[in-house]
């Protein structure tokens, strides 16, 4: 976790410090267990079943991808409050693949006295394939307050 970041500290075009994740089958199972209600075999845990549905491999659940991208922002600084968050799943995310989660600041504004930062966020695999894209609005405190 970084030090406290304030609204005045960031500029449009700044990168958000990237994080790396590799999702294992065990992690997928643990995540699905909390959610419950997923029948086995499933596209999330079984390669052959995933292929029977026309997918290239067993995939990481979309909700887990969302959670990881949200972490990119919440782990950026303890001062971050994630207000709005949108993601689009472009390509299935495979298990056991090194993923880089990264973001860039696209706008900053004060709305109704609330200092807000807009960011684009991505999940990319090693070879540069973009799997998930998203857009977020986070609230950062002002140093002057």
């Amino acid at each position, binding site marked *: *976790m970084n030090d406290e970041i304030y609204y005045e500290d960031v500029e449009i075009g700044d990168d958000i410090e990237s994080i790396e*994740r590799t999702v294992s089958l065990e*992690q997928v199972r*643990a*995540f699905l*267990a*909390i*959610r*419950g*209600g*997923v029948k086995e075999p499933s596209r999330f845990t079984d390669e052959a079943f995933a*292929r*029977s*549905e*026309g997918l290239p491999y067993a995939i990481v*659940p*979309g*909700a*887990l991808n*969302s*959670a*990881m991208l*949200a*972490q990119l922002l*919440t*782990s950026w600084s*303890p001062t971050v*409050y*994630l*207000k*709005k*968050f*949108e*993601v*689009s*799943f472009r390509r299935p995310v495979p298990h056991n693949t090194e993923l880089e989660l990264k973001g860039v600041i696209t706008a900053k504004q004060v709305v109704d006295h609330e200092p807000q930062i807009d960011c684009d966020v991505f999940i990319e695999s090693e070879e540069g394939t973009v799997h998930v894209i998203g857009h977020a609005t986070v609230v950062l405190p002002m140093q002057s307050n």
Partner: protein
Amino acid sequence: MATEEDITYDRSLLGAEHHIGTFPITREMILDFAKSTAETHPLYSDEVQAKASKYGSLIAPPTLCNIFVDGLKRPDIKLTFGDVGLFASQAIENVSPIRPGDTLEAKTYLKEVYEKTGRSGKMVFVVWETRFTNQHGDTAVFVRDSFVRRNNPKK
């Protein structure tokens, strides 16, 4: 039932709100979710630090409600197209913090159904909006989910 641009589904569901679940939030649920997603932010994973924060306790990570949304039994829209469904996109708006001991009520409605043609052929998108409110009647989270239906290329 109606047909529009080759999409057949139950249009009476558009905009009609359905209660789809009650979800008690527990400390264990928040900690297990944090663990399974490798979350390290103290507000979501460290009870001592969270207690000392302005929230006074653990709070739910921003995407916790996904675990409820994913498993929800939504009304069957009787879509006649496609044999494979995938999660296409999602939007979350966090309105107020969710704490252990809260009980969330979820109401959802069918927002829209539309088609697109991509590299893999025709796809139909089904968009739902869900609102979670806590036991005080306050909105905690809005979630918009879009699911895509397409034909299985293996068949």
